[in-house]
């Protein structure tokens, strides 16, 4: 099923950016470190809202309020992670192609982004949403999906 994608991955690895990152002694680790900093921003923004949806953390505030203040950091975190993740991927695209964790990460990342911006954000926009079975399910699902993305991401390096 993924075999037709191989030429694309080969092309990715041969891009100017891919070559530059691979050749450099410093580029990969430094970009990786910034990728981790993006994870901190994204993680903080996601967790504050998810915990609130579970009725934990900042539970004296309304869900909509916590989500509104977190949104900017959620977007910044996602953008930093994509901007750093792409060059990391380009530098070792063929390794990623044969790496199961990479595919798990991409699939769950796709789900996580859709879920966050279409399901969770939409629910959090509703000013009347309070801790409920619905909010708890959304918060728990969000933590579970994002955790899987991060865990699979870490495991790319170990497999």
């Amino acid at each position, binding site marked *: 099923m993924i075999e037709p994608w191989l030429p694309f991955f080969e092309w990715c690895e041969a891009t100017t950016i891919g070559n530059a990152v691979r050749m450099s*002694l*410093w580029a990969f*680790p*430094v970009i*990786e*470190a910034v990728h*981790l*900093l993006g*994870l*901190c*921003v*994204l*993680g*903080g*923004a*996601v*967790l*504050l809202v998810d*915990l609130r949806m579970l009725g*934990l*953390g*900042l*539970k*004296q*505030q309304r869900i909509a*309020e*916590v989500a509104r*203040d*977190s949104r*900017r*950091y959620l977007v910044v975190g996602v953008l930093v992670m994509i901007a750093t993740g792409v060059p990391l991927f380009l530098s070792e695209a063929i390794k990623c192609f044969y790496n199961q964790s990479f595919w798990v990460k991409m699939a769950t990342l796709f789900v996580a982004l859709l879920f966050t911006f279409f399901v969770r954000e939409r629910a959090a926009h509703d000013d009347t949403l309070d801790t409920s079975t619905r909010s708890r399910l959304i918060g728990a699902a969000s933590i579970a999906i994002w*955790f899987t993305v*991060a*865990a699979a991401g*870490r*495991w790319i390096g*170990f497999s």
Partner: protein
Amino acid sequence: MILTFLEWMQGTGWSIRLLESLYVWPLVESTHVLTIPLFVGTALMMDLRLMGLTFKSVPVSAFTGRMLPWTRAGGAILVVTGLLLFYSSPVPYYYNVFFRVKVVLLILAALNVWIFHSRIHNTVAEWDSDFVPPRAARISGIVSLISWALIVVTGRVIAYNWFDCDIQPQPDWVNWAAGCVIEGQQ
């Protein structure tokens, strides 16, 4: 004396077993990394609140009361997993310049936490709902943000030690900072 102790530690059975294990070491390391967004992420949001940048309608005490237990839980996991990773190969870490910088930064970050909670936070009732907290709190927030960010970065590059003592020649200051013992130069 420290080195003798670390060499002894590195020779213990559990240290070797941990380092050589196929899955335990990567799992401990993954737990360490995956706890970073919990610890640094929640701390960062509190720092931003202390700097008066966001969550303006959330009282500071909501962060120090309701979010801090989560930050603390993350910190505890990081300390335990971090110590285990150190225990798995203490001597190379001892000679790793990034590890040394990280330890110094950790001490600074811990001092900042201590100053904030033992002094600055004592008067929180007076400025709990202020959009922009007093200067001392804002400084504490930015020191926290910068130091934890640098700790994440130095922690990540520990694994890529460009200044390993085995890679020579290196500038004198690098060898000094990493504590390298160069033959014929003692």
